[in-house]
């Protein structure tokens, strides 16, 4: 046994590099090429959503009756729509709204899901029974209809829409979190940590969270595109954000009306929508690999 902590013989015969938890995650993540490309693409989308509206010479309210239905050209990179509005600008605003709704609804969902799931998992017993029954009901209700009702009640602003989507989609997250809490709670390494002298707070921060955040992050990265699709669905039937504020669902439904004569009007918004959804899904795949220690 080591006799004295200050008097340790040095046996660093070869250099052993430390690996941080983040570098380990990144190492596993980057093995999935599609996920890495998707991550860069998502970062690109976020930058475009922030910078685009600032640098665009157009605005989504700017009609130009001298430039209707233009196909892509130097002045309008993606052409114009039936009101002569710059399609690229509309798509960038639609992107911004989709990201706000996606991340915002995701945040609401994670917050409620963690709250309900963690309480149910930790307390167990009757509280768990009641909360989980409630979750079952939320799960069984058709979420699109529920969303419609909520949007009608709350109004059609960006914020109320993301709130409605978040409020109707947390049931799966609550189940997941509860399962995580139940699993981690009885794992032997939690007991081992206690035996080593770790405080409750340390146990939660150093062992419980790193080992349960993975599935939550993965679920979230799949639910963000889910929220975006829900928002588009609402827009498609005319219950999305109030016009003239553009949304991808609205642009796609509008484009579909002119699809045959002016295909660019549907190709660009639908393409942007599809690529974004795909990117989040591939990113989620990569995250799942990253959090799975067996990926190495």
């Amino acid at each position, binding site marked *: 046994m080591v006799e004295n902590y200050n008097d340790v013989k040095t046996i660093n015969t070869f250099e052993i590099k430390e690996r941080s938890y983040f570098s380990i995650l990144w190492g596993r993540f980057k093995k999935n090429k599609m996920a890495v490309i998707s991550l860069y693409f998502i970062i690109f989308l976020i930058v475009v959503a922030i910078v685009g509206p600032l640098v665009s010479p157009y605005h989504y309210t700017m009609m130009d009756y001298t430039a209707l239905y233009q196909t892509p050209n130097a002045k309008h990179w993606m052409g114009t729509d039936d009101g002569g509005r710059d399609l690229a600008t509309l798509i960038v605003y639609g992107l911004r709204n989709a990201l706000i709704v996606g991340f915002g609804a995701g945040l609401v969902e994670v917050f409620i899901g963690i709250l309900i799931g963690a309480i149910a998992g930790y307390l167990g017993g009757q509280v768990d029974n009641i909360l989980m029954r409630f979750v079952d009901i939320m799960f069984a209700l058709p979420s699109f209809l529920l969303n419609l009702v909520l949007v009608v009640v709350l109004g059609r602003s960006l914020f109320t829409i993301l709130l409605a989507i978040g409020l109707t989609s947390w049931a799966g997250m609550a189940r997941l979190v509860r399962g995580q809490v139940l699993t981690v709670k009885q794992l032997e390494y939690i007991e081992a940590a206690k035996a*080593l002298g770790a405080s409750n707070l340390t146990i939660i921060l150093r062992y419980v969270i790193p080992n349960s955040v993975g599935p939550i992050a993965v679920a979230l990265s799949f639910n963000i595109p889910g929220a975006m699709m829900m928002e588009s669905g609402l827009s498609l039937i005319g219950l999305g954000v109030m016009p003239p504020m553009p949304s991808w669902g609205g642009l796609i439904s509008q484009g579909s009306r002119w699809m045959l004569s002016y295909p660019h009007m549907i190709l660009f918004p639908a393409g942007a929508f599809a690529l974004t959804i795909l990117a989040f899904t591939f990113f989620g795949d990569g995250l799942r690999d990253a959090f799975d220690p067996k990926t190495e």
Partner: protein
Amino acid sequence: MAQNILQVENVKKYFKVGKKDLKAVDGVSFALEKHKSLGIVGESGSGKSTLARLILGLIPPTEGDVYLLGKSIFKASKNEVKQLRREIQMVFQNPYLSLFPHMTIGSNIEEPLRLHNIGTKKTRKSIVLNLMEQVGVPPQYYNSFPHELSGGQQQRVAIARALALEPQLIVFDEPVSSLDVSIQAQILNLLLELKRKTDLSYIFIAHDLAVVEYVSDLIAVMYLGVFVEFASTEELLNEPLHPYTQTLLKSVPVIGGEIRDITISGEIPSPINPPSGCPFHPRCPYKKEICEIEKPILKEVKPEHNVACHLY
């Protein structure tokens, strides 16, 4: 009197199951001297792990107390408990489940040092590499993850982690039950070597007497939450007094031979509905009337030999 490193005083642990009490540990007392090794043997469900948790202070007792180096682990302040944690450690049955899955082998072994703010990053690394050498884990595994190692290697890592704080006592809860027989012997030899080279005391728990006798100075036989016999290893093997110990010894596989006749009849009763009187009476071939009525207490019938049985 040599100082007892551990003193267990009439500890009980009852779990609530519905409205009933499950008496997992039902009054255990013993003392362990420095540099001694105690083996605890008993069938699955006899309360060995629960007793281990009580000794470590991981769960509060229903009754009784545990003194480590003369200090009650249940009455100590938060700070004192943290200090006591440096003196007693535990190694669990399933090494894969007890190592931190998201940390490398190096970080796993370093973790107790970090938690107790021992050394700098650099000295900790040297300590970790020393520990790895000591338990026979090649340094190349420093950056590996627990799941990348074999069960035997994982258990060596768990032992290194338990040794990191230089505890005076380690409780091994069935540390080899999940390992191949060939690996079991290696781990047992590692324990013996540690005991020879250092002044470590340990408690070794197993359901198999053959494993326990190999590494223990003293042996306690546990049945339904109590010690039914407690003696030096030699005494217990040469002259088992309790009928349960006798049946256990008969069923010990002789190395290289075949398993001898097992005369024990019936199943171990449930600790929710324990038998009245002596917990072993329904299976005991020498049952007397008193055995159904009065619970025998553990008493010293010979030097270094205690038994809880109405026959003595």
